[in-house]
């Protein structure tokens, strides 16, 4: 029979430091800073880089778990691309089983079902931050919403109970700092490139409150000097495109403003 103490010591030695830190954090919120200074420094460096970008194009290779009713975990993969020109221009091609396009010119948001050439338009807030808030209120998910809105970016660490710099990882030929965050119901990890431009290399979000702990993962590739054309964020429907009414989830079409 194994000696309990010896087993305990072996376990302790075997566990990475982070695991013990995170487990301790669940019971002891008061021990140490919620987010360590080194982790905060990496996050702040990334945040400063993002705020300094005049325009960028980022491709997103994502996977999203879906836990089916009997416990089977499916993984959905998609390629998306976001072209962004802060503070009020967005062109997003969001892949998946039903590819969608979002075009935002600072005044109007166009949603398009790409395969079927249908689109709907509505008046939109005058900034990306306002647009992201509106999308979130309607349960719409577009990749990287945490970073598209400056206010969300600034508040991303607010709910964090523990944040640590784990080390570095190699991702797509880049050396990236690996951050790990724990919240009451959500764990997330972020990899941030080292060097002159500190940009997110990858993000993983684990929803622990859902049975099966489904994860969303996204690997990101950035082009910070894409050189968009002047009309890149202006939606022009194709000659065969059909415009269809735009309504909010719980409002009839007549009550929703059409541009």
């Amino acid at each position, binding site marked *: 029979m194994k000696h309990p103490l010896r087993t305990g010591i072996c376990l302790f030695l075997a566990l990475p430091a982070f695991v013990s830190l995170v487990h301790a954090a669940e019971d002891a919120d008061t021990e140490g800073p919620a987010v360590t200074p080194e982790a905060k420094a990496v996050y702040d460096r990334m945040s400063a880089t993002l705020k300094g970008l005049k325009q960028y194009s980022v491709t997103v290779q994502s996977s999203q778990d879906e836990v089916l009713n009997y416990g089977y975990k499916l993984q959905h993969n998609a390629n998306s691309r976001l072209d962004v020109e802060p503070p009020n221009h967005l062109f997003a091609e969001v892949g998946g089983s*039903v590819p969608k396009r979002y075009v935002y010119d600072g005044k109007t948001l166009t949603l398009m079902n790409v395969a079927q050439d249908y689109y709907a338009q509505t008046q939109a807030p005058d900034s990306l931050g306002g647009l992201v808030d509106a999308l979130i209120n309607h349960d719409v998910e577009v990749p990287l919403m945490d970073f598209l809105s400056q206010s969300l970016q600034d508040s991303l660490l607010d709910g964090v109970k523990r944040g640590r710099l784990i080390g570095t990882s190699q991702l797509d030929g880049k050396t990236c700092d690996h951050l790990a965050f724990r919240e009451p119901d959500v764990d997330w990890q972020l990899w941030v490139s080292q060097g002159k431009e500190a940009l997110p290399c990858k993000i993983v979000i684990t929803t622990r409150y859902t049975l099966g702990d489904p994860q969303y993962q996204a690997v990101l590739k950035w082009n910070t000097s894409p050189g968009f054309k002047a009309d890149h964020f202006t939606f022009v429907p194709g000659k065969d495109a059909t415009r269809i009414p735009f309504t909010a989830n719980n409002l009839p079409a007549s009550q929703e403003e059409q541009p």
Partner: protein
Amino acid sequence: MIAKIPFNAYCASLALAVAVAAAPIVADAGRLAGHGGGGGGGARAHSSVHQARSASRPNVQRQRPNVQRPSNPKHSSPLINSKPDKNINISNNNVNINGGHNNWNNDHHDDHYDHHDDHHHHHNDWDIDYHPIATAAIVTGTVLAIGSIVNSIPPDCSQVYRNGTEYYYCNNQYYQP
């Protein structure tokens, strides 16, 4: 060793799972669209930390009750056993992998779940049934619903044609059969 679970308990959990899966999800179209459209109705991870946080709040934490399975995860293994003669049919977001002799579709749940339960235990068949794609994709109607998948069209719809394609127009939304 995996302990056997009481047969009745397993049946009950399956029945519950079937009932949840077969329920219309029109009201959740937004959630599905938000997750990339064409969802199968299972609980999905979120693509942003903020949305994962807000979805975990009690007033909107509705996903966990929808995920029904035997209490010990090991007991779900009879649902996913390998069999070499499987048929794989993937069409329009509907993933249906069957053992070849039983088709687990929404329409058949009430009749067959007992049979399938028995079948899973004794024949080591495997089914991965991806719910609940049945009839229609919302073409539009809401910002959320473009490309969403529902499994039933609401009543009181009028049949319309746009560009030679047949649609149903119901409550300001277009549905494509």
